[in-house]
């Protein structure tokens, strides 16, 4: 080997060391640090980037408009590509070097890996994983494996959203004048994210008089799902809950359209948006999906602020954001108001921010009326939102149409806590 390659290797390793040791520790006098984990290049980037933009723009907007009652927000976005070790490293870095107070997280993998750490370090995490088992902060329900005292998320849990859909389906079945037991199928990959509501939702469907069919497994990655569609067809299932997101949903809709299944699809919150409908094309017929926010074109008072926030990264203001963006905004604004409360009541610390989450009843962040649903977090119940708006999407020959079909408010049943 030549000497020059040796030197190059030395040089590159040296520069790597320098890059590692330089940590941005220039803390301003009055500021708090918020870490932001995002997946912009990993398997969930399809929606991860949209949500991350919502969080990032909101943080920038809050800073540009006086911060947390005068305290500046310092923040850093790290694209961890849905890899747990990198999420842990980022968390530790923020915790030890930047004195992180609150974290905006992303998926099931990182949120769950960090549950013990954030509970011990008393760092509230606002995740975009809506797993039902993050909702029991004290472990009151014996079902709960692990209490998650410092985990919050904006929206109905995956389980609650699925229960809402099942409730809608039961009414839909009756209103169409059908007789007999409707059949319900869970469709999704065998992974914690699609699986999260599987048992809870099937249980409730049975309670409502559905016949629960064996779940159909489709991979998280796009593929040819005609075989699965054929088995759905032969089972004669009437309602199918889709637990996946992005390309996988696209493939499923396309495959089932080819096969000609007669099933009413109902997807989880990440499985339906305009981008999916446009790409999936003709297969999108009365596709049911839940939302926690209005759409970009809806005329509600809060959208004015959202459009201002959006200009932080899109100066022209022309970009039309998917509804996941608004959830990122809501998540950040609930955090902001909890931090404001904390500042007035003993300073912005993780513990105080957590307390700040319990102060308001029927809480909607200021300026986001009509965008964020009224939320109630309590010391024993982290099901902030128990309302599910149910929408229906149609491809409609290229002119995608989305309309609200129902609104379901779920009971806060004790046996559903953390499940």
């Amino acid at each position: 080997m030549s000497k020059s390659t040796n030197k190059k290797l030395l040089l590159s390793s040296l520069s790597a060391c320098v890059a590692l040791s330089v940590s941005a520790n220039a803390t301003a006098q009055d500021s708090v640090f918020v870490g932001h984990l995002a997946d912009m290049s990993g398997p969930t980037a399809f929606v991860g980037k949209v949500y991350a933009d919502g969080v990032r723009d909101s943080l920038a907007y809050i800073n540009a408009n006086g911060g947390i009652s005068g305290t500046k927000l310092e923040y850093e976005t790290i694209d961890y590509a849905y890899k747990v070790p990198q999420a842990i490293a980022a968390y530790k870095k923020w915790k030890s070097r930047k004195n992180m107070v609150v974290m905006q997280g992303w998926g099931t993998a990182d949120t769950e890996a960090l549950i013990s750490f954030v509970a011990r370090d008393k760092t509230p995490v606002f995740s975009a994983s809506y797993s039902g088992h993050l909702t029991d902060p004290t472990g009151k329900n014996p079902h709960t494996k692990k209490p998650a005292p410092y985990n919050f998320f904006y929206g109905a849990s995956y389980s609650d959203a699925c229960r809402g859909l099942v409730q809608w389906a039961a009414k839909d079945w009756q209103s169409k004048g059908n007789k007999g037991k409707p059949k319900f199928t869970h469709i999704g990959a065998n992974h914690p994210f699609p699986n999260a509501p599987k048992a809870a939702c099937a249980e409730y469907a049975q309670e409502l008089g559905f016949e629960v069919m064996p779940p159909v497994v489709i991979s998280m990655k796009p593929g040819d799902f005609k075989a699965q569609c054929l088995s759905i067809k032969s089972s004669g299932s009437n309602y199918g809950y889709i637990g996946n997101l992005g390309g996988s949903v696209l493939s499923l809709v396309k495959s089932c359209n080819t096969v000609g299944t007669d099933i009413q699809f109902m997807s989880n919150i990440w499985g339906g948006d305009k981008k999916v409908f446009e790409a999936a094309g003709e297969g999108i017929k009365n596709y049911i999906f839940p939302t926690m926010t209005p759409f970009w074109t809806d005329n509600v008072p809060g959208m004015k602020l959202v459009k201002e926030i959006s200009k932080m990264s899109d100066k022209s203001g022309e970009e039309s954001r998917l509804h996941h963006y608004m959830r990122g905004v809501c998540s950040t604004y609930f955090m902001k108001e909890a931090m404001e409360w904390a500042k007035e009541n003993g300073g912005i610390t993780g513990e105080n921010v957590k307390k700040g989450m319990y102060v308001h009843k029927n809480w909607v962040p200021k300026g986001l009326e009509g965008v964020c649903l009224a939320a109630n977090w309590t010391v024993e119940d982290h099901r902030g939102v128990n309302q599910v708006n149910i929408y229906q999407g149609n491809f409609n020959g290229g002119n995608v149409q989305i309309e609200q079909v129902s609104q379901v408010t779920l009971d806060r049943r004790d046996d559903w806590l953390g499940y």
Partner: protein
Amino acid sequence: MSSLTMRPCGDFRTSYKQDNTIFETKTIRYAAILSIIALCFAPLLVDSYFITLLIQISYLGIAALGLNILVGYTGQISLGHGAFFGFGAFASAWLNTSFSIPVFLCIPLAGFLTMGVGMMFGAPAARIKGLYLAIATLASQFIIEDFFARADWFSGGSAGSMAEPINLFGFVFDTDQSFYYIALFALVFMYIWGCNLMRSRDGRAFVAVRDHYLSAEIMGVKLNKYRLLSFGVSSFYAGIGGALYAHYLGYVSAEGFTIFMSVQFLAMIIIGGLGSIKGTLMGVIFMVFLPEALEGGVGLMKMTEWGNIPMVVDGLAYIKEMAIGLVIIGFLIFEPEGLAHRWTQIKNYWKFYPFAY
């Protein structure tokens, strides 16, 4: 030659003892001992971010050494190492919560359980070679992954399972700093064990199976036995690494142990050097620090006026992901024998300096 502090310019090993030694010269031995002592003081000198990375290096390093014993020394291939790593993690958590076995005993027990599972999958695999073996181990990856998602009694299914921190005589190792010592001890212990294994009769049999299985068989090395043993040892290491990972995080979820993790382990040993114990560690260190260094680079960009716009920052995030792939390709082209080989070359350069030619 009795007090060997410098290495002679050539191979002058005249006894089995010299041929078998772990540390080639006294200097290397002292350097190794000193650096372990120095690592003991790390928690006093660096913050918990670095400690986290060192802990990551430990548990990944242990598992990667297992894979190197299988791939680098025995010449088998495994695409299921990530799943075995996960099995160790769940097994240790399961043993602890279901049978109340103390955690420090659960970790080695989880290693043995994983060894059992590894040998179970290794049994058919020991009879096949090359591409067929790759596919067989790929199957084990998917079977075990599916098992995690379904076996509620074992892994908690989609809810995951809890893992208590290590508790030794009333002292709870639940901070980064305290767990670091456990991780360091495990790393040193498992690496010394690995070195010793390779000096033993069984280790030489592994190498014989790799180098020329027909000759090995003619010499009396039982191919099936040693291939199976190699699978077992490799899974044992993966299990120990996984168990440490579980008790460090306190929580295990099935999401992490995918085929990507298996590929990452392979990348580590290819970059580090197949069939080299110190290379394994180098590869792991490289793979753990590379994303962090690149992240640091992105951070530097973000601090500048022109760099802190979403377009640049997001673009860098993609570059960061691509860079990892690029580095692996780079290594395959320019340094197929890995960092360990490169290290030897650097050492040789200085050893013969200035008469390298």
